[in-house]
């Protein structure tokens, strides 16, 4: 990363992402937290653009902002007690412990990694090579992920179907 523009973009994006991520934690209203989460996703997509990974950045926005965040909004709206204030909880101490452990791991990884910067974007970030890699080298994880998604889909349908509905369907 060189020049004034990319550096400025990096710091602005970093501030945006961190502030939004903090907002997810401190906002009392669940829907505000979701909206902050969307802002975090957009900030991360900005980082991918800075790293010349255009395709991954666009996929990040389409999948996380366009699909997952919208689904989260939908789920929050359908949850009966989502309007409650989530300030007091018995899980404060375990939460803090977990956060400290995670922070330790992240700091260790950040400290331990050799952060090489190169001037040119490495090959293999465009759509064609990504698709080839997914369907040749990484085909087994790819297929396992899709089986997992199918299982989640079937599970969701099973969970949401009430016995009354099944009885109604049986009559038709």
């Amino acid at each position: 990363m060189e020049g004034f523009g990319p550096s400025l973009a990096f710091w602005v994006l970093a501030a945006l992402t961190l502030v939004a991520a903090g907002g997810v934690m401190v906002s009392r209203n669940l829907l505000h937290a979701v909206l902050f989460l969307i802002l975090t996703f957009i900030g991360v997509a900005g980082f991918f653009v800075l790293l010349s990974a255009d395709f991954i950045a666009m996929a990040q926005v389409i999948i996380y902002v366009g699909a997952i965040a919208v689904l989260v909004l939908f789920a929050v709206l359908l949850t009966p007690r989502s309007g409650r204030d989530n300030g007091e909880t018995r899980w404060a101490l375990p939460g803090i412990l977990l956060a400290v452990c995670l922070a330790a791991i992240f700091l260790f990884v950040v400290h331990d990694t050799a952060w090489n910067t190169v001037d040119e974007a490495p090959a293999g970030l465009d759509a064609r090579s990504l698709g080839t890699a997914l369907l040749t080298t990484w085909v087994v994880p790819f297929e396992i992920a899709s089986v997992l998604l199918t299982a989640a889909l079937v599970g969701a349908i099973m969970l949401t179907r009430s016995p009354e509905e099944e009885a109604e369907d049986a009559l038709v």
Partner: protein
Amino acid sequence: MTPFLVSDKWYDIRDLGNLSREILEAADRILPFGVVYVLAALIGFVASFLLFVLPSQLIVGVYGERRIIGRMQSRLGPNRVGPFGLLQPIADAIKLIQKEALTPTRADRAVMYIAPIIFVMPAVLLWAVIPFGENMVIADIPVSLMYFLAVSSLPVIATFMAGWSANNKYSLFGAMRIVSMAISYESPLVLALLGAVVMTGTISLSGMVAWADEFNIWMVFVQPLALVIYFICVSAELNRTPVDIAEAESEIVAGYLTEYSGMKWGLFYGMDIGYALAASGFAATVFLGGWTFFGLEQWVPGWLIFIAKTHLFYFLFIWTRGTLPRLRADQLMAFAWKFLLPLGVFNLLIVSTERMLWSEQDYAKGLIYVFALVNIILSVALVYAWARFNGYRPERTPTRPRLVKQAGGYIPVGERS
């Protein structure tokens, strides 16, 4: 591209970039460093406003839409302000600006305040990747099709924020509906576009226009089914009238816009047209060959051809809005999942097969016309067969008005009789 196309003389208006470059280079010699960037932004703003925003957004969008719908519904439409009522949109804007923008007491003020702003931003950002001419594209990024899809998924969030923050049950109904509809219609839309991507082998919009230019055929002839699916899906995502269940006046007041007034409402209204125009421009680029017209672009400026195609596609939006009745929410959901999604999968299957056959023939030029003919026949057959399979029995055109009882009642899609 032929060398005849687009010289770099400033008087060649087939590429407006020449003129602006000459102006900016001349200005850069006399002005201090950096001012030219501000000047470029100003020129771009004025030029795009005069060439595109004013004729498209106000004349065709607001005025033309109301006039054409008036014509379709046997009334006059706006005809009082200015010649032929042409100044009606400006009068509307002045009225909206001086209106008070109310905020309900129990509303979430911050979210309600920023929702229209977030709704406007993507509508402007979308135009960054649309090629108006051979060199007339702001950001010719290699993933411009995905960029368009990504940015066009943002207004859903804004409309949800608008509907939820107003703290009104009708607004919330509208927000729920728009979120569920966006999820349902996104998948067939992406499947339809995937067909175009598979055929051209690129996800760059300029690359798609170049493909249409090279093979002298528009994507709409190769994949008519994809265009139909795209049109229906994009109408649903943009809340255009036959499928605007998120702001259905007869059911939920005005949906997510219930509590908005003044220019905050005006921004939503104006940008609805902006999104429809952007979707038309996108369809004109992907399916109608963009700024090319079988060689005509060498004499007529390409951006004029592109704007004409955009408005032609936008007329389809006006047409469906003026003629079709609104669908019910559950009908719309069933239509997306039971009709459009399977058709999209079929279309993708056919196109992938053809692409494979085509690559074995070393991309012979003549073969694409055979594919076009086959695909047009297959599309019609597929739509007919899938409708029959879903239990839709078309009845003969009634020669005289009949009661519902005589017609045998309404049979919803998806229920076999």
